[in-house]
Every structure is written in structure tokens, then in C-alpha cells.
């Protein structure tokens, strides 16, 4: 997918902006604090309906504005065109459009344009809490599988309803009351567990290969650890496991098993990267995961996603950065931010330049 034009109105620090990238690689550079990341955030928002930095849409409206608009016009590899737009008015509901037509649910926008973003905070995927690894998987899977996205939304609702029951100690017949929620937890839990397991089977070899291609000397092995217990085999099996821990759940007043407890195991030559990884190893592992996600999305969507690299090159040593630049096949278009023109020029010869100047102005060519 190629983003031909991006238009912003009252989005973050941009009052009104239109840029026309169009080429395979675009470099966005300029001093820090001028909103380079905000441009990537807008492209990410069009692909996923949300910002990667906040869940609060009012924060995305430019100071003094009432409504933000973000619109992108895209070109598919077969030449087909598409426009996507998202608008949010203070106090209102977020609205999305595909080819000018308003969608009834924002979720139907997800995956129209696949995006993979790499930001400095992503080091938490390999270093941080399990939640960060689940988010990585969810972000990848939601774009390629609308049923997964729906199951995930249902799971969230089921867990909130269930914990409300678990906390309600006044309820005399909690087992009977839990039953309808447990059956649904089993259904959604099984659907999500199965989808994650299947995706991990496809991702694992891609991650391993990307890690060594990026110059990591070790072998990176990634495995899936379902929170529903070892090797669930069916929805009934999952339901049995949920019912078996019901008393425990009632005592602790929370749902102790389910996909909300999933984790990924990441090992470098047999040692947990989370516990023993160096800075460089974490950085390379995160890039390997993201490049694998790009490949998986390209395979499943039949269209290469857009890769957004936020401040990645400043953080990498020269040899890894070079290897990364040569491994961007599989991505339809790449946007990379940096503070200087030279560092981006080095890795992407022939890249289009966009220089972010003061007060949200962007100059082409720079």
C-alpha cells in the first residue's frame, strides 16, 4: 500500500497540512519537538483507528481547535485507489469514512491499510510486562482478521461483566449466575487462543529469520504461552478449565485464567531475553518482531503494509541500521523519522525528504 497524500486539520500541532509522499520511502526530519512523530501517529490512526500513544482522542485535537480530521489517499499494488478518513469532535463520537462513505462502526476501518509502527517505547515488548507482548500480537492480528478483533472486543466485555459478578458478594447463587459468562469466556477464549497459536506458528520462523538477518549472532526463538492453561484442545476443554477454577476466582474476585493472561516466551540461545538481554539485543529483537509482523500482514492481507519507523536509526549502530534498510522488502512504503537529513539519506538512497519546520509547517525536499 502506498500513501499518496495525507491531510491533517487541527491534528496535534498541525493546523492544516497536506503532504504527498507517493514514493516508496519518505524521510521526515527536523529538530525534536516539532511533531515528526505526530505525522506517523496520523498514518497509524488511519490504519488502526487509534493513536499509538493515547486512547484519549481529545488529546489529539490541536490546542484551540474543536475537531480533528485525518485523511489519507492510498494506492494499492494493483493500481486500485482508496481514501480513508477519521474525524473526532470534542464530546462526540469518532467517525470514519472509506471512500467518502461513513462506516457504522469504527472497527470496519481496521486493516483497510495495514500499518506497522516501530517506536522507541517498543523496547518494552521484549523487556516489559506480558501485556506489551499481547498488545503486539493483537495489533498484528486485528488488522488481518476482523473476527479476531470482534472476539477481542467481546472478551473485554465478558471479563468486565464476569468480574462485576465475582465482586458481588451479595449474590446468593453466583455459580448459576456465572455460568452464562463462563460459556462465553470459553468461546471467546478459545477463538482468541486458537488464532494466536496459529499466528505464532507463522510468526516464529519469520522472527527467527529476521533476527539473524539483522545481524543478531544468536538464535531468537519465540513461543506462545496460553493463559488458559497448557495445550487447550477445544472450547469444551477451555470451559472445563474455567469451571474448575471457579471457586478460586470467587475467592480472589478476579478471572484467573483466559487469554488476558497469555504471554510470549522470547529466548536468545535458550536464555530469556527479558531477563538477560542487552540493550542491543532488545532493540534487534523488537525490530525482528516488527519485520515479521510486516511479512505476516503482507501474506494475509495480500497487500504490503506501511512501515513507520520512529527515530529508529538514531538508536541503531551503523551496521544494524544498514542491514535493516536492506530488509525492508515486504513493506509497501516506509516512513522514517530522524533529527538529521544525512542519517536517513545514508540508509535510503533516493528517499523523498519532508522537513518539519516550526509551527507545524512541512517543507518538501527540505
Amino acid at each position: 500500500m502506498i500513501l499518496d497524500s495525507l491531510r491533517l486539520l487541527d491534528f496535534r500541532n498541525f493546523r492544516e497540512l497536506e503532504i504527498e509522499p507517493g514514493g516508496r520511502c519518505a524521510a521526515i526530519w527536523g529538530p525534536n519537538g516539532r511533531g515528526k512523530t505526530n505525522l506517523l501517529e496520523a498514518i497509524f490512526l488511519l490504519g488502526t483507528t487509534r493513536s499509538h500513544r493515547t486512547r484519549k482522542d481529545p488529546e489529539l485535537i490541536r490546542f484551540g481547535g474543536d475537531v480533528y480530521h485525518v485523511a489519507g489517499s492510498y494506492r494499492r499494488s494493483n493500481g486500485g485507489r482508496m481514501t480513508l478518513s477519521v474525524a473526532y469532535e470534542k464530546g462526540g463520537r469518532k467517525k470514519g469514512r472509506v471512500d467518502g462513505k461513513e462506516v457504522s462502526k469504527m472497527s470496519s476501518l481496521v486493516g483497510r491499510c495495514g500499518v506497522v509502527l516501530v517506536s522507541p517505547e517498543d523496547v518494552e515488548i521484549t523487556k516489559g510486562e506480558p501485556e506489551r507482548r499481547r498488545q503486539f500480537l493483537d495489533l498484528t492480528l486485528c488488522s488481518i482478521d476482523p473476527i479476531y478483533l470482534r472476539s477481542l472486543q467481546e472478551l473485554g466485555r465478558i471479563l468486565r461483566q464476569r468480574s462485576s459478578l465475582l465482586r458481588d458478594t451479595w449474590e446468593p447463587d453466583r455459580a448459576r449466575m456465572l455460568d452464562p459468562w463462563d460459556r462465553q469466556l470459553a468461546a471467546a477464549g478459545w477463538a482468541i487462543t486458537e488464532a494466536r497459536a496459529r499466528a505464532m506458528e507463522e510468526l516464529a520462523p519469520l522472527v527467527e529469520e529476521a533476527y539473524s538477518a539483522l545481524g543478531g549472532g544468536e538464535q531468537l526463538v519465540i513461543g506462545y504461552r496460553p493463559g488458559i492453561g497448557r495445550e487447550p484442545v477445544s472450547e469444551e476443554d477451555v470451559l472445563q478449565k474455567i469451571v474448575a477454577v471457579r471457586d478460586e476466582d470467587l475467592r480472589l474476585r478476579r478471572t484467573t485464567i483466559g487469554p488476558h493472561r497469555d504471554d510470549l516466551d522470547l529466548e536468545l540461545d535458550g536464555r530469556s531475553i527479558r531477563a538477560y538481554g542487552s540493550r542491543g539485543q532488545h532493540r534487534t529483537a523488537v525490530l525482528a518482531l516488527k519485520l515479521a509482523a510486516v511479512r505476516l500482514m503482507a501474506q494475509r492481507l495480500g497487500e504490503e503494509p506501511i512501515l513507520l519507523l520512529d527515530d529508529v536509526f538514531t538508536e541503531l549502530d551503523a551496521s544494524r541500521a544498514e542491514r535493516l534498510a536492506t530488509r525492508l522488502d515486504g513493506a509497501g512504503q516506509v516512513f522514517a523519522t530522524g533529527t538529521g537529513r544525512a542519517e536517513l539519506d545514508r540508509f535510503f538512497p533516493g528517499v523523498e525528504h519532508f522537513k518539519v519546520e516550526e509551527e507545524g509547517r512541512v517543507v518538501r525536499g527540505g
Partner: protein
Amino acid sequence: MFQSPSLEALVQELKKLPGVGNKSALRMAFHLLRAPREEAEALAKWLVRVKERVRLCVVCGNYTEEETCALCLDARRDESLICVVEQPSDIYLVESTGEYRGHYHVLHGALSPLEGVRPESIRIGELVERVARGVVKEVILATNPNVEGDATGFYIADLLKETDVIISRIARGVPVGGELEFADQLTLARAFRGRRGIE
């Protein structure tokens, strides 16, 4: 904002209606202000009248002005079939498919511990009593295809497990996570034909 407290109050009241924001409330208020007096009076009359006269059918919970609604009294309808819906408006959706000739039961809600909606808060007890009278042979669960609607369906199915009635759920042709309201007529009609037993 206005020099008229009455206009201000009207706008405030209109804004309480579902899906009505500031803009639409203003548009409606100005429309009524410009409209002939009779139009405003008719609206006011019917607003009061529905509050006075409309009540719930003692059998099915549908809106009616009699004790029992016309659907429940219609002898041509099959009383061995009961279709369970969340809201009276769902009856009109099912009726519009032309696929169903049985009776209804309106729950007036769905189970939701988060919002404090318990089995006693909705008309589940009345349904169990109706079934206990013995005429009913099949109960079709047409609650909304979202987690609350499904939970309600499972709960009812469990309560009726010991009886002889067949319990079916209309097939999930209706978009999951949506509401019955958004299912188009054709999908709903298909759902009625394709309903399956619930284990």
C-alpha cells in the same frame, strides 16, 4: 443563550432524547416554534396520551392499550411457539420478516451485572411461568447478538432445561456485536429459518 426561558427549557428536554445532540435539539425546537399551533398541540397531546394509556401486555410484555395485546389475542397465531426478544421494538423487526407466526415474550432488557441488571430485573420469571402452563412447545431466543444477549439466552436455556420445550437460538446471521435493530430483514428472515437447538 436565548431571551426565552421556555425555548431554553424545550431544547433541554429534547436533548434528553436518544441520539439527539445540541444541534438537532435546536433544529427541532425552531421547527416546532415555526410550525402551526395544531402541530405542536398534537405532539403534546400524544406525548401525554402514550404515558397515560400505553402499558405492558400482561401476557407477553409488549406495548398495548388493552390488558392483552392484539398479537396475544390473535387466534391465527401459533401459541405453542414463543419468540423471546429484548425490546418491544424487536417484535416489529421480527414481524417485518413475515417468517414468524407464533407468540412473543418481551424481556425489557438483558442480563448485565455491570449495570445491575439481574434475572429478576427483566421478565424472565414471567417467561418460566408461561412455559410451565404447558401450551408452549418451542422457545426461540432472539435476544441481541452481543455478549449480554447471549448470556441472557444461556441463562434462560439453563432454566428451561428440565422442561420438555425445544429451545432454539436464531442463527448468528445477524452481525455479531450488533443489535437486532441493525440486522436487515433478509438476514433476520434467514435466521428464523436456520434456527438451531441450544444444548
